[in-house]
């Protein structure tokens, strides 16, 4: 499937055309809030509104953000609406079958242009005054256009396009930074761990059903960081769920609880952890029986099948997470410092028979998603952290990320730097990268070059 990264577009001069309030945004130096080497985090990063606003500018406006899955688009005009940070976007397939993304805000008075979650259309027409944009984002129709001044040029008033949209094995990502490093380079070794979920089937993957959406009290980083680095909570937080899930009903065996495993630590803030004990698997029976493990070993390599293909967890920085065992892919949409909107899809292999897909769907719903017995535990933790974070003294006490300090190494089996399964290493790296971005001006902070023919 082609995306706009096959033909990068120009940055839209309309962004930042009027400079906003005189005082401008105040940037906060976050270096004192993150001690990645010492494993200490100042918890104000979860509650401070100034930090949150800065994240919108310096994290979400410049990072590769998950938008949608390619299987959501089959014909020109198919669309899906989502968010990049708090910016609303429309993702659609244009007439040339290229996936493009636009700011979901009418150029006229700023109304939310497309008000549907998903669907098929020929035009995006604003329901306020009727400005109408085609699938290529061009302004096609302005009711009562004759009343506009002579110099009014519809070409200047097309939708604001997300300049970079690209695909990695079915996952579509967008980036507002037109000079951003390519997605594949940003992912780096993370691709190996993602492939253990995305590349099992030569046919690729697809999402089934709709998107599950729910709100949580909590800062988006609590969820993103946990999926990057936290196997530690599993045996405690999910004790009751693990008891229910164990075949004997008596809970998992000691060697499964104390399973060995590895945790991948990316310099770009991504993380993935997975057990490597051959019996540590919590997959749906029908899915387990469906797979030809010899063929998978041939395709992905022994280590991928024994590790990241199993019961693992992962985050692609900043806010896309997944669970290979049940095909849960999700985005943590930030909605202010204290609120997350979780959007979760169920990912399956395309060539799975329908009954196997359905078994995976049911298994996914039983464990994760709004009705999942594991998901409920996680949401409760994040919300309880957030609920007490308003206290002044509470918020003045640093948090501990010291497990596995110094354990990161190249282990000769898994690509990149890895740590132990039970470790905070990917969390420290997540926050280190977060702090680097927070302290570095983004593309929109550089003085914009004057357009040709206009004085600087």
């Amino acid at each position, binding site marked *: 499937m082609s995306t706009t990264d096959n033909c990068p577009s120009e940055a839209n001069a309309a962004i930042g055309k009027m400079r906003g309030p005189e005082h401008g945004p105040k940037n906060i130096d976050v270096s004192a809030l993150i001690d990645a080497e010492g494993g200490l985090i100042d918890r104000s990063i979860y509650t401070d509104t100034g930090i949150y606003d800065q994240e919108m500018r310096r994290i979400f406006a410049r990072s590769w953000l998950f938008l949608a899955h390619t299987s959501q688009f089959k014909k020109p005009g198919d669309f899906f609406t989502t968010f990049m940070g708090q910016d609303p976007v429309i993702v659609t397939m244009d007439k040339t079958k290229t996936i493009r993304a636009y700011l979901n805000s009418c150029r006229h008075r700023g109304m939310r242009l497309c008000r549907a979650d998903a669907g098929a259309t020929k035009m995006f027409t604003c329901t306020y005054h009727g400005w109408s944009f085609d699938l290529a984002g061009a302004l096609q129709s302005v*009711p009562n256009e004759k009343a506009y001044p002579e110099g009014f040029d519809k070409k200047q008033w097309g939708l604001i396009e997300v300049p970079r949209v690209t695909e990695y094995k079915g996952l579509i990502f967008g980036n507002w930074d037109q000079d951003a490093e390519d997605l594949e380079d940003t992912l780096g070794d993370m691709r190996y761990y993602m492939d253990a979920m995305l590349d099992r089937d030569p046919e690729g993957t697809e999402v089934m059903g709709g998107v599950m959406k729910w709100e949580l009290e909590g800062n988006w980083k609590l969820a993103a960081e946990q999926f990057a680095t936290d196997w530690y909570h599993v045996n405690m937080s999910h004790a009751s769920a693990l008891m229910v899930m164990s075949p004997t009903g008596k809970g998992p065996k000691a060697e499964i609880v104390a399973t060995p495993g590895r945790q991948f630590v990316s310099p770009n803030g991504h993380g993935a952890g997975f057990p490597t004990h051959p019996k540590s698997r919590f997959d749906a029976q029908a899915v387990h029986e469906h797979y030809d493990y010899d063929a998978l070993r041939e395709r992905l390599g022994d280590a991928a099948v024994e590790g990241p293909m199993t019961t693992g967890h992962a985050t692609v920085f900043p806010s896309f997470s997944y669970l290979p065992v049940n095909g849960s892919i999700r985005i943590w949409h930030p909605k202010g410092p204290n609120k997350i909107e979780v959007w979760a899809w169920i990912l399956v292999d395309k060539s799975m028979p329908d009954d196997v897909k359905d078994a995976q769907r049911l298994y996914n719903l039983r464990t994760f998603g709004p009705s999942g017995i594991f998901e409920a535990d996680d949401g409760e933790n994040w919300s309880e952290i957030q609920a007490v974070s308003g206290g002044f003294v509470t918020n003045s006490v640093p948090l501990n990320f010291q497990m596995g300090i110094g354990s990161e190494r190249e282990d000769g089996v898994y690509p990149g730097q890895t740590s132990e399964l039970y470790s905070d290493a990917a969390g420290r790296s997540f926050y280190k990268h977060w702090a680097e971005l927070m302290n570095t001006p983004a593309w929109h902070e550089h003085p914009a070059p004057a357009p040709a023919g206009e004085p600087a």
Partner: protein
Amino acid sequence: MSEAINIGTINDIDEGEARVITAEENGTDADIAVFHAEDGNFYALDDTCTHETASLADGWIEGTEVECPVHSAKFCLKSGSVLCMPATLAARTHKIEVSGEDLLLYPSVSVLGA
């Protein structure tokens, strides 16, 4: 302009779809949209919406109505009358005849009578 033009066969336009017979082809001053409605019949209206510039042939055909793809004005395919704002003027109709498998268009011949 009462001469019929053969514009192809009934198999050329799927039910729920439409095609444009350009002004050049139809000999009038306007493009004409020929619709294959969900009642199985064929109808023809001026292609350009009476509200703003938009092709009704690109619109959504439901039953014997077409909804403009741009501002959602609705027209009756049988009579051209407006069924929903923001359009206020009826669309011009043109007679269509099915002869065997052939589709015959009578540009500018109103189905409503002269």
